[in-house]
């Protein structure tokens, strides 16, 4: 048995939620939430939390002398992969022009998700 404490992000109320789980990570009880959204959030957050990861990488050959282009994972990746995703961006440098949606790193950190550019850089 273990309990995980979370803060719900569904609304400004920010309910403190306690999730009770058995040793096989089966959810026994979700408590502390004051609406069904909190229950849903807590179940996802303890079983398969995901995040969009954003960062920036260097560019070269920019007409206007821009140095960086912002990037994001094209979809959610597991929360535990965040630092691996960031590590995979180290040393990456892309030629200009860069367009929104251009793939900067394919299958970043083996997540099956591409890292894509989020800004137009000429």
């Amino acid at each position, binding site marked *: 048995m273990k309990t995980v404490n*979370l*803060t*719900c*992000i569904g*609304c*400004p*109320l*920010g309910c403190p939620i306690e999730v009770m789980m058995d040793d096989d990570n089966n959810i026994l009880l979700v408590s502390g939430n*004051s609406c069904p959204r909190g229950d849903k959030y807590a179940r996802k957050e303890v079983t398969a939390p995901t*995040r*969009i990861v*954003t*960062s*920036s990488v*260097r560019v070269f050959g920019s007409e*206007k002398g*821009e*140095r*960086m282009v*912002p990037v*994001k994972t094209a979809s959610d990746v597991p*929360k535990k992969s*965040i*630092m691996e995703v*960031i590590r995979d961006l180290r040393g990456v440098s892309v030629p200009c022009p860069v367009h*929104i949606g251009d793939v900067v790193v394919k299958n970043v950190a083996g997540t099956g998700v591409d890292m894509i550019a*989020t*800004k*137009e850089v000429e």
Partner: protein
Amino acid sequence: MERTVYDLIIVGGGPAGLAAAVGAYDAGLRNILILERDLRLGGILNQCIHNGFGLHTFQEELTGPEYAQRFIDQVKERGIAYKLDTMVLSIGKGEDGSKEVTAVNETDGLLLLKAKALILAMGCRERSRGALNIPGFRPAGIYSAGTAQRLVNIEGYLPGRRVVILGSGDIGLIMARRMTLEGARVMVCAELMPYSGGLKRNIVQCLDDFGIPLKLSHTVVRIEGKERVEGVVIAEVGPDRKPIPGTEEHYRCDTLLLSVGLLPENELTVGLGAEISRITNGPVVNESLETSVPGVFAAGNVLHVHDLVDYVSEEAKLAGERAADYVAACGDGFTAPEDGAKRVPVTFAGGIRYTVPSAIDPGKIGNWLKIRFRVGDVMQNRKVVLYLDGEPALTKKRRVMAPGEMEELVLTARHVQAHPDLKSIEIRVEEDV
């Protein structure tokens, strides 16, 4: 020297200026000019590379630059003129009733421009260390959170390795995560108030995800180091927000980020002579987002600081449409004739700090009008009631309200039609038992 004439000049090419331009164009205006001081359109969104923008406007979660690009594309598709790298020096009223804009850039030199209408969309800036009176030397390593954001995301520099953050505004929270991802160690985030001014989502995903402690009711009492920050001392504060002796904690660090509030940037507005609200630090506006100077409108963070860019875009579109109405009423002249506008003040009680707009002409709200406001403290189990001439016209239950979350009420034409001779509009926050 002859001034170049436009129907509408928009000061600022960030989210407010772009949406205002699109709103004005779609309402029929063609002779529009946007003046932007940066080298590209989009304003502060260019450095806000995190996601979470546009859920309301596009039903998608975009990053800041992606959200900006949607509006930049709309401006370009419409062929709306803009000048980059152009600093507006002053705005004023001409003898012929025109609004005069003086600006400068490297290509044109000094620009003397005239317009029938102006939209102020200059945004806001960050409150600085000087506004906080933290004692100590003035070492390197103290940045506003937004400056650090620009250094990391645009310039590609990491401003420090061991970081303490004062203030839990959203930019500070976002930078706690960003600096951590780039290899810095964020020791703590201290907040003077007993609650955070940032969004819950940011507290969870920027602090909790990385095990960064948030210390509420704490502030920085000392900054150590002469050439470079070497440490800061944080202490707990009492209900009077004064440090409690004996609660000091020392943190060894090389960087202090400040995320302690945003201030609308209204030097130009003051120079014009428009009335400024002492609470929002933005101009006082009516239902058309028109300032006390007829034909001059304001939208976005220059008017009042918003939490979501989606609301900025919506507000700015309205300013653009109303500016187009004003220009249409000008005919061949530079000013619209006085139309005997009614001015019903919006009053408030029960913990509301301000409303935008602060006065309404009931005949000019169109089908509906959003009244936006903020409360001064965290409150639970309340209802917001809108009274027209003392009669409740609209009630909205709120389980929780916080200073960091902007509230809104939608006043509809149906509400005001029931009061043909409307004299008072009041919004009250009441206990909901």
